[in-house]
């Protein structure tokens, strides 16, 4: 079994913690609790053979805003990143370029999967996938997700595992 560290990054209140909770525990909580510092969870993804099994240590890092910058120390040793934005808030796109820049500076070209969260409210979205293409993330690595409906959550993580395993 292989152990891998991945980090959830993004602006505050985009749904990073909810996505982790949905992925690890299969539950969704309407109440919002801001993450301070980092929260760590674990999930084992089993493949066809035991040798392909991956244990993910998921570091859910506190959200970035005008007061809080992304702390590169938490990113150390990561094998992949899940970058989350909130489709209902265009403002959450703003810090993504800087986040990607920090990631590339400290971790090089590690795989990044972009999640446009809250697809259950897609009718209220303020931007579309096309607006994210400038980030330089391939189409196949961009997912519309919903932590509430469990839409594409597992697929997104599996995609990251696939990219890490290459």
């Amino acid at each position: 079994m292989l152990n891998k560290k991945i980090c959830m990054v993004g602006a505050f209140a985009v749904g990073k913690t909810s996505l982790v909770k949905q992925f690890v525990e299969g539950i969704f909580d309407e109440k919002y609790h801001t993450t301070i510092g980092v929260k760590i969870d674990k999930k084992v993804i089993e493949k066809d053979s035991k040798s392909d099994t991956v244990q993910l240590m998921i570091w859910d890092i506190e959200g970035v805003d005008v007061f809080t910058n992304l702390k590169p120390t938490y990113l150390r040793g990561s094998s992949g990143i899940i970058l989350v934005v909130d489709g209902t808030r265009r403002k959450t796109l703003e810090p993504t370029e800087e986040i990607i820049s920090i990631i590339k500076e400290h971790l090089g070209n590690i795989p990044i999967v972009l999640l446009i969260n809250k697809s259950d409210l897609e009718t209220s979205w303020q931007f579309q996938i096309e607006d994210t293409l400038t980030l330089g993330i391939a189409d196949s690595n961009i997912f519309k997700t919903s932590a509430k409906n469990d839409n594409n959550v597992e697929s997104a993580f599996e995609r990251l595992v696939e990219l890490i395993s290459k």
Partner: protein
Amino acid sequence: MLESKPDLKEQNDSGGEVEIPDKEYRRLRSLMLGQDYEAILTSRLENDNVYRVSSVLTEAFKKRNSEDDSLALEMSPVIESAIDESIKNHPERITNVIFPIIGPAVRKAVTRALADLMQSLNYVLQNSLSLKSLVWRIKAWRLGVSYAKYLLTQSIHYQVEQVFLIHRESGLLIQSVQAEGVSYQDPDLVSSMLSAISDFAKDSFEQEEARLETLQMGDLTILIEAGPHAVLALAIRGTLHADVQQVSTELIEALHSNFAKELRYFDGATEPLEPAIPMLQEALITREKAKKESKPWFAIIAVTLLLLVLGYYSYQNYLLQRSIEQAVVRVNQEPGYQVLSRKYEDDLLTLEVLRSAMSVPQNELIDTLKPSKYEIVFNEKIASIDDPEIYLPYLSSKYQANLSVERGEQNKLIILGEITENNLARLMQDSLANSVFSVEKSPKLIIKPSLSVQQKSRSEFVDLVQSINSQLYYFQVASAELTEESQNLLNQNITKIRRILDLQTLAETTIIQIGIFGFADPQGSRTTNIDLSQQRAKLIKSILLENDISDSLVISWGGGAIDMSSVPSQYQRRARIEILYELKGATSHAQ
């Protein structure tokens, strides 16, 4: 033995070389020099080889031993086989060697075990019954932990409960171990959180170069020791001691030394670092608080109380049994009474009693007994002269007779049967019998003769002879010296042989001959074995003669070695005695 030499060469007629086979060469030499000279030469060469080897053997061993252990390794199977053989052939020798060591070692071990048991018992009692233990129980309850767990924390100085080896860069857990009986959280999450806490502290207090070294929560301390590629975290319960810090420092260094490549290029696969687990386990140290060696008073008092209680109850039981015995004897002494059986249960003594109609009523007898701790009840059967089926079975059994009755003239009851003279005399004194009827010797009562003196003597004689004839006496290797055990046995049997001789007259038997037969084991030549076996037989004969057993009766004979391959050698080195006798008026007997 001559080694086969390379074939010699000679020139043939055409100038080429031809080989002369070694066999031919030797044959030629033999013809020229003669067979005897050949033999002498061979023998001389052999002796020379032996001499040469023996003169250097000791030095060769010494030299080889100083270079490596190969000699010991090669000799080891040989020595083991030699020890096996020695034990098989001479078990008494090994026993004699070990005996002086075993006794003191066993005594010491038993003494130590008893002392430890008393200390443990004392510890348990002290921690269960003392005021201190009561206070600890309350504290444990307040902390929400079990008393056993709290007790442990009070008795240990410190204990390393868990050890984590964490990848420094990613915070991923590489390996972890925990002490037995310690409950623990998910080590993967713990190691990641420790990493995150360390990073958080560094960022929060802007300490780029410094690292978190300890975390403390109550009596649990997390000691963190960082290396270039991995971090060691030890979870310690109790007082953090310098010993543990040293252990952790040395351990992280050793891990980086032994697993440099694996740690440097760690990619999440933990299997290559599984060999590090034993090293981590060595760090699971427990240091107990020094126990003062003191007298285990609690245990002593508890054991003394227990002994006193047991002693008291034993004494009470003894008094009770004695009282019951006295009551039974008293009843038996009463004319016309006989106790057939007794039963004691729940403070009630029940006696099955046979009494005559003329004897005192039972309640009067019970009144005279007056036991204080229990009641007496009689289940009686009245034996009147007209109820022989009641008393006859009892009398028959008691006097080993076969008794019955018939009506005679004047309506007398006549006892019939067989009884010995002695038992008849006792029957005539029996109080029950006398109270039921007047006992006279009836002409119809057949007196059985008791076993005569002659019969008893003969029975004893035959038993003793069988015992002597069935025993064997063993000897030391290649000697006519008896083993210690056999010497003792012979001494005992000499007494029996003298008794046999003394019984001849009373038993009306005659001893014809006392034969002594010696044997040897198959080692050695036939001649040697015959001589040895004869010496062995003669030795025993001489011992009998020294004990006033007539020379004219005793013969000795040596049988050499008899083929007994399934019998161990030490049991083939033996001798035996055979007594041949005849009964007066019968032919010879020997067994």
